[in-house]
């Protein structure tokens, strides 16, 4: 039976969803606007007799996550943009070692220390491999507190199933806002997926040695490992591109936006509708794998696109790749922590449609 709806802050809901998903080890370092998440884990992981460590730095935290994940724990860290930059080395190592782990980024404005208000300017960093080397990992983009909880919960399953990091890419608005949320059920830790590849407990298990590492100094072998990993990426891209869409059939113009920007795009869509103008909305839920098949189909049908982001234009490049020159693409973005308004986006719609 579904639980009663609760009023929760995004950061708290992410923390509770992680605990319910069976996260047994959390390592973090405080940063606004995700502080409530670290605080939630500090209290509730310990209450649940699980591991919580406030590390001495973000670099330490991600490496603790790496270590815990290598022993088979469901491990997680969270931070906000500047802190996520510091974690990139560890994320690259985890991708190179095929380690499942969960990273939550509650984005704020940048570059550099930037500001503490919401932003979506970490799209490139998240989807293109913010660290070094040939790799990708899951990137899930919630639009609401409910989805922040649901996607965090699911991130642990995806990470384990595909043996790779999964990132939940929220922003300061999702983290700080309160909405109603129905939380998923608490997992029985004894029923989590078995990880025969994990290190530790070798004596009691009497199994052969396992190695979890990203290093391989033999180029032929390393190339084969990376290629095998890319075959896994291809399977994910073929089966797990996820999106939500609205009012597409009736519309020539399709808004493309994720997370908070998609909420604003929805508001603009409703303003347009009230004036008798139809526009559609395509909201990517997975940013990696990007829903490129759907964007491509829509381009083939002759749709044109308006991409709305809280950045100078990053996801718009994935739309361009999927469209491949077949459709017109416009972009509207605000940055530096400025959040576009529904009216601004609607004005852009009218400008494009000359209405």
């Amino acid at each position: 039976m579904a639980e009663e709806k609760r009023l929760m802050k995004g950061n708290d809901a992410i923390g509770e969803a992680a605990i319910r998903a069976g996260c047994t080890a959390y390592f973090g370092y405080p940063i606004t606007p995700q502080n409530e998440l670290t605080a939630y884990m500090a209290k509730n992981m310990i209450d649940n007799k699980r591991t919580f460590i406030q590390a001495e730095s973000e670099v330490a935290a991600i490496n603790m996550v790496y270590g815990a994940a290598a022993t088979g724990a469901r491990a997680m860290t969270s931070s906000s943009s500047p802190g996520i930059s510091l974690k990139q080395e560890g994320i690259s190592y985890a991708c190179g070692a095929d380690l499942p782990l969960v990273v939550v980024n509650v984005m704020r404005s940048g570059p550099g220390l930037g500001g503490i208000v919401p932003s979506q300017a970490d799209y490139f960093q998240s989807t293109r491999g913010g660290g070094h080397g040939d790799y990708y990992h899951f990137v899930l983009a919630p639009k609401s507190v409910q989805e922040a909880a649901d996607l965090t919960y699911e991130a642990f399953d995806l990470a384990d199933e595909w043996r790779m990091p999964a990132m939940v890419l929220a922003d300061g608005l999702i983290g700080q806002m309160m909405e109603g949320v129905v939380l998923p059920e608490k997992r029985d830790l004894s029923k989590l997926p078995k990880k025969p590849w994990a290190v530790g407990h070798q004596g009691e298990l009497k199994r052969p040695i396992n190695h979890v590492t990203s290093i391989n100094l033999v180029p032929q072998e390393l190339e084969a490992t990376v290629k095998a990993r890319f075959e896994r990426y291809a399977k994910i891209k073929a089966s797990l591109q996820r999106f939500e869409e609205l009012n597409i059939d009736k519309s020539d113009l399709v808004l493309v936006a994720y997370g908070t920007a998609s909420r604003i795009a929805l508001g603009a869509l409703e303003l347009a509708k009230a004036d008798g103008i139809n526009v559609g909305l395509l909201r990517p839920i997975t940013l990696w794998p990007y829903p490129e098949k759907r964007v491509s189909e829509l381009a083939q049908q002759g749709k044109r696109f308006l991409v709305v982001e809280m950045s100078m234009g990053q996801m718009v490049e994935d739309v361009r790749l999927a469209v491949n020159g077949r459709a017109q693409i416009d972009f509207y973005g605000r940055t530096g922590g400025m959040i576009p308004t529904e009216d601004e986006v609607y004005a852009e719609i009218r400008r494009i449609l000359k209405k």
Partner: protein
Amino acid sequence: MTEKTFMAGFGGQGIISLGQLWVYCGMKEGLNVTFFPYYGAEKRGGIARANVIVSDKEIASPLVTKPDSAIVMNMDSLPICEEIVKPNGTLLINSSLVKVDPNRKDVKVVKVPCNELAEEIGDVKIANMVMMGALSKVTGAVKLAKLEEVLKSFFPENKHKYIPMNIKAIEAGMNAVK
């Protein structure tokens, strides 16, 4: 029905609690709700602000840029609220602390002496609850029915002794705009 409310006051007046309780009651009445506070780097002081939406439909942007109603709890908040409230919207003003009239003539102005009413009941700290009663009465967006039950589930048990006082404050606010 969608009611977008902007709430502002000085830090300590309970703007955040007011917004949270308003949406909590809305959620308990079956509405979709969002509450987004302004968050800054200040440790204390400054103007506390909250974007609050209750709706029987899916809520698009959680930001309130053109509020249907705005709550002005102190003098400094008046210019901010007056600038953004939409034409024919409502300004709910705490007349205990705001002694001037707004310049806008295209909005409905509701004055509630929140501090005085709260002090009469017993504590100036519940001035925010007086204002919540007024907001409910004026907008009808959240009915604040079954209040005792809802407040019991919102506040931890050690605060339950304050519930009767809060209910009195909310009712005083409702009656003040009759």
